[in-house]
């Protein structure tokens, strides 16, 4: 079953066009990775799913047309978003940040807190710490945790490994894999770290200068793209 379907998406920043006719399908239960160099349009694409850009085309989620929907409503339909740079609330503690994530899902707060603390014990140890004083890795965990607090059907993650040490990247990868395999959560993740993306995803899209250049399984893409290394130095 297709959970998310994007067709012919054009996105503009003022007059500049950042995405050109992007189409993408996500089947329920799978992990889809969007790879591409800096400035390719990965964040723009993910922001667009959340209704945060000026866009044309069509986006449907879980059978509903969300192309023109406001972000708050899209979140309520079941999309959790961990955006680039986190957009956490710097002067709130860890727990408070998570509680804001539960704004639309107040009946499941206790269960979701337990779930997030189970995935990231470090967050549970420092519930009062303001996110402004957290390390990069902790912030990424909090960002994922906040997104999970709305009990999403689809989790969207923008470059989770950006600026993180390899060990932390592995930790994050393990959590994403667990969520997907154990709870059947569908995940869309963007990455410049090709190895990270390829090791997680069932489907990979390569985005370049606002267009989808290739798509397929990680094996397909590896074969088609020996050049990937020249692009990403991976």
């Amino acid at each position: 079953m297709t959970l998310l379907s994007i067709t012919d998406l054009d996105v503009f920043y003022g007059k500049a066009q950042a995405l050109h006719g992007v189409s993408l399908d996500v089947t329920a239960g799978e992990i889809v990775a969007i790879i591409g160099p800096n400035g390719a349009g990965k964040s723009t694409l993910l922001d667009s799913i959340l209704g945060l850009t000026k866009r044309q085309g069509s986006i449907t989620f879980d059978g509903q047309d969300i192309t023109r929907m406001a972000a708050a409503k899209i979140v309520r339909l079941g999309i959790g978003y961990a955006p680039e740079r986190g957009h956490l609330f710097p002067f709130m503690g860890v727990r408070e940040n998570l509680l804001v994530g539960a704004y639309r899902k107040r009946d499941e707060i206790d269960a979701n807190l337990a779930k997030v603390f189970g995935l990231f014990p470090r967050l549970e140890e420092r519930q009062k710490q303001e996110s402004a004083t957290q390390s990069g890795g902790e912030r990424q965990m909090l960002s994922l945790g906040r997104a999970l607090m709305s009990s999403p059907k689809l989790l969207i993650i923008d470059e989770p490994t950006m600026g993180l040490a390899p060990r932390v990247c592995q930790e994050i990868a393990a959590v994403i894999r667990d969520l997907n395999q154990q709870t059947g959560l569908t995940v869309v993740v963007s990455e410049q770290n090709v190895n990270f993306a390829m090791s997680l995803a069932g489907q990979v899209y390569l985005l370049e200068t606002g267009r989808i250049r290739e798509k397929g399984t990680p094996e397909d893409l590896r074969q088609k793209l020996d050049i990937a290394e020249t692009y990403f130095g991976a």
Partner: protein
Amino acid sequence: MAIQILIHGFLLSGLYALIAIGFTMIFSVGRVLNLAYGVYIMLGGYTYFMAAQEAGLPVFVSFILALLSGVAFGLLTYELLVRRLENNPVAVEISTLILAVVMQAAIILIFSPSPKSMWPVLRGVLRFEEVSVTANILLATGVSWVVLALLMLFVRRTHLGRAIRAVSMDRRGALISGIDPRNISRVTWGLSGALGAIAGVFFATITQLDPHMWVFPLITAVAVVIVGGIGSILGGLIAAHIIGFLETITTTLIAPELRGVVTMALIIVVLVVMPKGLFGKEEL
């Protein structure tokens, strides 16, 4: 004399903190200065005057009516002006200033330009040794502190309150948490109107009720925000006390006409010397 000034300064400061908080909230959430804020204070005063003194309604009912007038006018400011001028703070500031002047004219037309003498909300004077305080200013301070404490609980302990702080800290972060910033703005403007009007009832009974009374509280609010640092509740409380004491000292020891002048001087000094205020951090 010294102890009298100390006590009066302290009492007045609570009211100043209340005046300032309603103004700060708007800035934190929408990043605009609401220059019509003084009108909520004036409206609170006039509504209470009409209800309690002209219509003879009970104090509590008059108070609620004043509060509602603030809520209504706050919401109106948001819906009619601010929402339409979103992303243009300068336009918001100019138009709210114009709104304040228009409201001043309206009040003059309806009530005449001359000051009304207001009865205190609570009568009586309390004396301890050589110090005397009116029951009215004690009540004003008590109500101010209770309202501030309730507000603190509201923004820290409720989902809606946290959402207001979330929008003030990271609008996009709030959006992707399922919060509609427009709804939050609406709530904040209504709340700001209520806080201004509550403060206004006391402010009018302590100073006087006239069509120009919106100016001084506005300056006080701006000063608290600038001195305390934008959006910091603790910074605001401390700034309100600095200003409250300065005002009390100058108006009792030098001349009552100096009310506001020291505050304005303080604004300039802080802007030049420490532009982020004493506690500048962008939170509520």
